[in-house]
């Protein structure tokens, strides 16, 4: 028979073992992405695999992001200069659409929470809109877009991202607004504030952690969206996920090193944003955050 303290130690060991294995499974792809981005082309497919790249090279980054041919060990320059523009496109499109989505979503949520402009059933239908597979709407949408001249434009993508993420924004922000006591708003009202003033000066600042959490959630969605971007944009406006797909062409094969360097660049902005707002995230994701 094991003693109680031994049993406790055993269970701790097992628990940490399981967690460690899980962490390795979860983080290995990220490690592999980063290490591959620093490998020379001969090591991309090497067998046995190269876990610690040697020598370290920056050629993948310089080639992908700055189109610098002289650093390319091989002839795999697929597009020059393009990823930087895609990064700019992605940044503008994702930020603008997310901003619009959170702004209008929170205003709608306010209406739902305070004036019941949508019933429970309607709120669910709103979320159900997201259950429709995008592929179903993409064809008719591109017809409309072509008629409206929105194909291959930033405005087009911003608009569709804004509309498709709006239900999430409404749902998420509503749960935060519901927690703001009515009396706080009424206090503002009787002190002379208009409704808009109350919303922008009292309600939205009070749920800022929730807004930030919603913002990041939607930003991740729009940042990594692929299907709509693939069909609605062609050549003029490319986003990073589309750019990434170009690195596994049929003629060139898979240019892993370049793709990894690009992936790192796609991931880093999200990590930076996440770190910047982590204080709010912790509060925003643990609902019930509004202190009285």
């Amino acid at each position, binding site marked *: 028979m094991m003693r109680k303290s031994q049993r406790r130690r055993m269970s701790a060991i097992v628990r940490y073992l399981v967690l460690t294995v899980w962490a390795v499974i979860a983080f290995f792809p990220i490690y592999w992405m980063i290490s591959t981005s620093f490998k020379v082309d001969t090591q991309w497919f090497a067998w046995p695999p190269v876990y610690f790249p040697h020598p370290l090279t920056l050629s993948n980054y310089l080639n992908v992001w700055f189109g610098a041919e002289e650093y390319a060990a091989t002839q795999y320059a697929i597009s020059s200069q393009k990823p930087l523009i895609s990064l700019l496109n992605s940044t503008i499109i994702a930020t603008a659409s997310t901003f619009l989505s959170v702004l209008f979503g929170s205003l709608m949520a306010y209406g739902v929470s305070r004036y019941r402009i949508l019933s429970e059933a309607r709120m669910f239908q709103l979320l159900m809109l997201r259950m429709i597979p995008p592929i179903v709407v993409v064809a008719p949408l591109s017809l409309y877009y072509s008629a409206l001249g929105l194909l291959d434009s930033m405005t087009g993508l911003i608009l569709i991202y804004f509309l498709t993420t709006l239900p999430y924004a409404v749902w998420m922000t509503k749960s935060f607004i519901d927690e703001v*006591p009515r*009396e*706080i708003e*009424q*206090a*503002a*009202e*009787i*002190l*002379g*504030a*208009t409704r808009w*003033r109350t919303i922008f000066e*009292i309600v939205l*600042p*009070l749920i800022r952690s929730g807004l930030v959490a919603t913002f990041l959630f939607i930003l991740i969605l729009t940042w990594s969206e692929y299907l709509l971007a693939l069909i609605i944009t062609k050549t003029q406006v490319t986003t990073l996920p589309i750019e990434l797909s170009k690195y596994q062409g049929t003629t060139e094969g898979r240019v892993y090193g370049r793709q990894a360097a690009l992936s790192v660049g796609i991931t880093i902005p999200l990590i930076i944003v996440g770190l910047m707002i982590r204080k709010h995230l912790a509060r925003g994701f643990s609902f019930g955050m*509004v*202190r*009285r």
Partner: protein
Amino acid sequence: MACIELVDLSKAFGTVVAVKNLSLAIEDGEFVVLVGPSGCGKTTTLRMIAGFEDPTAGEVRIDGRVVNDLEPRDRGLGMVFQTHALFPHKTVKQNIEFGLRMKRIPAPERAQRVRQVADLVGISHLLDKMPNQCSGGESQRVALARTLVTNPSTFLLDEPLSNLDAKLRRELRAECDRLHQTLKRTFIYVTHDQEEAMTLADRIVVMRSGEIVQIGSPMEIYSNPVNYFVADFFGSPSMNLIAGEIVHENDAVRFRSPCFELALPEHFKTATSGATTLGIRPEHVRVSLGGNGEIELPVRLVEPLGRDTLLYFDAGVARAFIAISAGLDMAEVKIGARMALSLDRRRLCLFAADGGRIGGPRRAGTA
């Protein structure tokens, strides 16, 4: 300065009627307390005055003008909420300043008025703090200051002290009283605490089930309750209420209960025989050690409070019959001892089976 009139005011939430045909005129500068148990419609009435609830029927008038369609911000009123409702993301100073900013008062004047008001309620040292750094009492003072600074014609206070402990409540009650006397504004105060109502009000409005039961000065309400409900609600300890019946015997009228019988004064002669409840305040019951009295009851509990001693007697019902004896003379009385009690007949109240007062309320102080 404002007179507030409520004319046949009603409010229904779906099928639930919260306020029924309520009419009330509040004079300029008066301190009126709406009091009653939870769910009696007092807060709903206050919220209709403020403009947060639209009346289902009836009118709210401020200085003769119907304000039913006016937004809360245009009514010139100030309100203090039960939860204080401070803006948690603004400092105390910004909280107080908010109303002035909404009225586009220039910054220098704002700063000056904030300082004045902060001095008035004694929170000058808190101006740079956040609301969550203030104690309950401080928060309530900030809420008061935030309302005061806008100089409203009428103050609406919705159970402002109910979240505070007893000592603070007494302190802030005195503060409210002082403010009313300094500012000479109309105060409408909602509470479920009869003691608060008694100490603060010029006039008390007792409400129950959405209707006004009685309106009067604290002393009127206390001495001459119109029915059983008011009699029971006011006073601490509350009025002794003993169920029994009225019997007429050879020209005399008597009250008879399972444990004692009592001759009733002349003016109850016209009362019809039948079930009744006899009411008498504990301070109108005289207890004498070994003396004579009209009734004799066994002691159930003795509570020496210092200035007075409360004696609880067993009157054959769940609720004890209470008498107050001045000083500590009675503190040593043994539990179970039978004592003689005499009741001040001029202060006896009788209530009919439906709760209504028999013989009607009489002027306070008259025999």
